[in-house]
């Protein structure tokens, strides 16, 4: 590991100020420490924000939730309100990592974790995300785990988070604080940036900006599911995952919100797919038509073509689970 200066921030303002000065924030550290040991990243200055008070899990006046950035993944998954009103979020969290890591990992850090692309992790290899302009070995290389949506000729890495997939389906927003104390709220939909020709810039966060909370609107419906397909039954990243929220009214699908993991550089959502479902009677034909549309824009690579069919079938299974058809 490269030498670095360690500083524990005593306030949000101090953290943001230190962050502006070549600082890298550390919260749970589960991903960052791993990357530092491998020298994939080498921060000059580590700003420990783990003891700052970002608030806990609080109900908002509109019936939604505010989740403080340092709420650990295990505490969020175990929270009574989350389990009752946002089961898709609890399920997604519990499908990720291990008990030990969930005890450490924070809400803000989970959103900012880096891809598990093998070339990103291997410092002997070119990678546009790790070393901008050096090239992408995954394209044309071993790319079984890579994206079928949203990639570019510079990067086809996937976002690894389960939590973020559920949050995307729940229409979550990210609360961000600047060094001057000003706060802004960014919908998760606009928080991540597609790789295009700058795959090393992954979010809209500016230097010195800090995630202070995740905001959830009241749940649109209580029919919620999260299904994750992976190479082993536990403690593995998703090949494909599906977060679904459906409201039925008079035998018809009144609303549908779906987000997909393991298939894109960010939690993926497809409005056309949701519109095909809405206002219609649930059934295998409708599900097939909707999932055919879902993969129309898919651009699989050499090793990950299986994800197209896997995504369709996993989505159909979730639709079936949610509608009882």
């Amino acid at each position, binding site marked *: 590991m490269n030498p670095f200066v360690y500083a524990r921030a005593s306030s949000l303002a101090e953290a943001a100020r230190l962050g502006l000065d070549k600082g890298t924030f550390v919260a749970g550290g589960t991903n960052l420490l791993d990357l530092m*040991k491998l020298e994939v990243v080498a921060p000059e200055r*580590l700003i420990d924000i783990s003891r700052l008070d970002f608030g806990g899990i609080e109900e908002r006046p509109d019936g939604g939730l505010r989740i403080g950035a340092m709420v650990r993944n295990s505490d969020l998954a*175990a929270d009574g309100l989350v389990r009752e009103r946002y089961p898709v979020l609890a399920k997604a969290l519990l499908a990720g990592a*291990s*008990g*030990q890591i969930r005890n450490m990992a924070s809400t803000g850090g989970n959103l900012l974790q880096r891809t598990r692309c093998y070339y990103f992790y291997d410092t002997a290899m070119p990678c546009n995300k790790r070393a901008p302009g050096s090239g992408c070995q995954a394209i044309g290389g071993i790319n079984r785990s890579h994206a079928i949506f949203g990639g570019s000729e510079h990067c086809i890495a996937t976002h690894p988070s389960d939590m973020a997939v559920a949050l995307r389906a729940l229409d979550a927003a990210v609360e961000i604080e600047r060094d001057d104390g000003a706060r802004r709220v960014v919908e998760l939909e606009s928080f991540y940036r597609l790789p295009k020709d700058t795959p090393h810039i992954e979010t809209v966060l500016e230097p010195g900006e800090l995630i202070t909370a995740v905001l959830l609107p009241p749940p649109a419906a209580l029919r919620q599911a999260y299904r994750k397909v992976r190479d082993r039954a536990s403690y593995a990243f998703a090949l494909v995952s599906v977060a679904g929220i459906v409201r039925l009214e008079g035998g018809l699908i009144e609303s549908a919100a779906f987000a997909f993991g393991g298939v894109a550089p960010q939690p993926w959502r497809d409005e056309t797919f949701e519109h095909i479902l809405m206002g219609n009677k649930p059934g295998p034909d409708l599900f097939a038509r909707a999932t055919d549309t879902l993969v129309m824009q898919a651009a699989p690579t050499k090793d990950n073509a299986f994800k197209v069919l896997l995504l369709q079938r996993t989505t159909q299974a979730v639709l079936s689970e949610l509608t009882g058809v």
Partner: protein
Amino acid sequence: METDTRTTLLDALRNDLGLTGTKKGCDHGQCGACTVLADGRRINSCLTLACMHDGEEIVTIEGLGAPGRLSALQRAFIHHDGFQCGYCTPGQICSASAMLGEIEAGWPSSVTADVAGRPDLTAQEVSERMSGNLCRCSAYPNIIEAILDVAKAKGS
């Protein structure tokens, strides 16, 4: 104690404090051999810096029991032959001791049928909750039996 900023909690325990019960396996959070309890919660001591835990209570396998005063889990691992080489065992036992507290507190897991309800104490639940602790000798069936034994004794 004084140590380099780069020192992980794991290396501080083993190298600075001489508490070698906590094992270094993968050093990347994948195997769980380094599991310790930080303020009562199980964590991977390899994935965190010692300086981040200033003032916290860290419990290692040495703190859970010792020859002559073994903990219930340690006795159960011996009784059920829950290990072969033994390298993963301190991590397994630290992890299991906190994991039983998580079940007691009603935390669900990804195999809990109703995420809003209380989890049942089954082999499937224990297996899922212990997935962060690998055993290359594959003593898993006996590890699960040992943990279930202790859990049932606690519950009765």
